[in-house]
């Protein structure tokens, strides 16, 4: 398979990359790891005339941990997340989720920025970013702006990022307490039939705080406030988990596709959400 011809650009700073986006408008796309974009170009489902490779732009590969604030550059790969000792201590849910993405070769190339910016409901990082209440930084012609992950996703492949902006990094607070990223997939490398990210803190045998988010169960990632509220103050027993799962299921809107009909997806989602809550609690 050979993609349609395009012009390749490899700017060395973000200003030059933004300039190219301004010049070429919607004929241009930025390239990070390329493991979503290049397959689409090969299938000729994406026609791009100007490809702007971000690999030479300094600073986009940094992982910085300042106290409790974690900043991850857009070009950090899934493999980088998995092997980073500081992240394993401060936000271990990242490693747990990244290990469930695609396969080893794809994880060496696939980036956090690409995963969150693409807007594919099947990607795992957007759901995780809902749970973490992460903030995305977008560089644009008028400078940087921040958008909360929970406000970023509008529908499949539609996000708050404007065409002339580049997502340069994400930040979130270090996690405390228990965590779990549970994913059901047909085979290794597949997107989720259903996946859930859960963070829970415990105080005196009760749930002090909780965050519950889901992947590939609607046309955007879903953060369920009601699921978290069902857990707050409870002892996270079977009744509380059942109530939280019921609340989470009320917030999703899966569609039928080759991973199954809606009823099956709701069934799988219920199991995955319950498991994620129970496992996060067991680590809290």
């Amino acid at each position: 398979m050979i993609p349609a011809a395009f012009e390749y650009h490899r700017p060395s700073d973000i200003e030059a990359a933004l300039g190219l986006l301004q010049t070429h408008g919607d004929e241009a796309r930025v390239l990070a790891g390329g493991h979503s974009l290049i397959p689409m170009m090969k299938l000729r489902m994406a026609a791009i005339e100007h490809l702007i490779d971000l690999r030479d732009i300094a600073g986009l590969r940094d992982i910085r941990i300042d106290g409790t604030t974690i900043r991850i550059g857009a070009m950090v790969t899934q493999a980088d997340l998995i092997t980073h000792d500081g992240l394993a201590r401060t936000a271990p849910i990242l490693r747990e989720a990244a290990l469930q993405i695609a396969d080893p070769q794809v994880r060496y190339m696939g980036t956090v920025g690409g995963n969150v910016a693409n807007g594919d409901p099947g990607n795992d990082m957007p759901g995780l970013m809902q749970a973490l209440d992460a903030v995305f930084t977008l560089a644009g012609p008028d400078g940087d702006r921040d958008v909360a992950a929970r406000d970023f996703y509008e529908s499949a492949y539609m996000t708050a990022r404007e065409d002339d902006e580049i997502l340069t990094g994400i930040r979130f607070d270090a996690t405390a307490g228990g965590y779990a990223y549970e994913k059901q997939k047909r085979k290794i490398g597949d997107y989720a039939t259903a996946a859930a990210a859960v963070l829970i803190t415990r105080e005196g045998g009760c749930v002090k705080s909780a965050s519950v988010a889901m992947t590939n169960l609607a046309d955007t990632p879903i953060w369920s406030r009601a699921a978290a509220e069902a857990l707050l103050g409870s002892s996270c027993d079977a009744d509380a988990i059942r109530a939280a799962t019921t609340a989470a299921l009320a917030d999703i809107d899966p569609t039928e596709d080759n991973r199954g009909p809606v009823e099956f997806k709701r069934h799988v989602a219920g199991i995955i959400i319950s498991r994620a809550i129970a496992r996060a609690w067991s680590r809290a």
Partner: protein
Amino acid sequence: MPKTAIKLNVNGKAEDLLVEPRELLIYVLREKLNLTGPHVGCETSHCGACTVEIDGKSVKSCTMFAVQADGAEITTIEGLSTPDNLHVLQRMFREHHGLQCGYCTPGMIMRAHRLLQENPNPTEEDVRFGIAGNLCRCTGYQNIVKSILAAAAEINAAQEAAE
């Protein structure tokens, strides 16, 4: 479309090439450099038959443009050994019947090579998880896993003997 000049270091040899931006690395390796070890399998980033090593990473070379690899060090299966002196992974694949048709083998061995660099003492589960991006339709994987574990044991035994 104008061609772009790139420099690659492939199996220890410097290569100056002119490529179209849309040329995928696998085709440049196979058709411009005559390195036909990396295979074109699924062409959809699933099967791993095109796996090569790029700057210490296992990469599916059907999912990378050659221009992206400008300046990179690349190792293909041809760079691992000579026909008279096979790499231990190749010997173990032969000894333990880690291949039948052989189509997936170059990618499988390049992936296993990197896996053992990063984890010299893998468990069976580590091996299975580590080669999850490489498909084999013949062996059922059992003998591939055996071959990789045997190669790890031999490399470690040789190192201990050397110390």
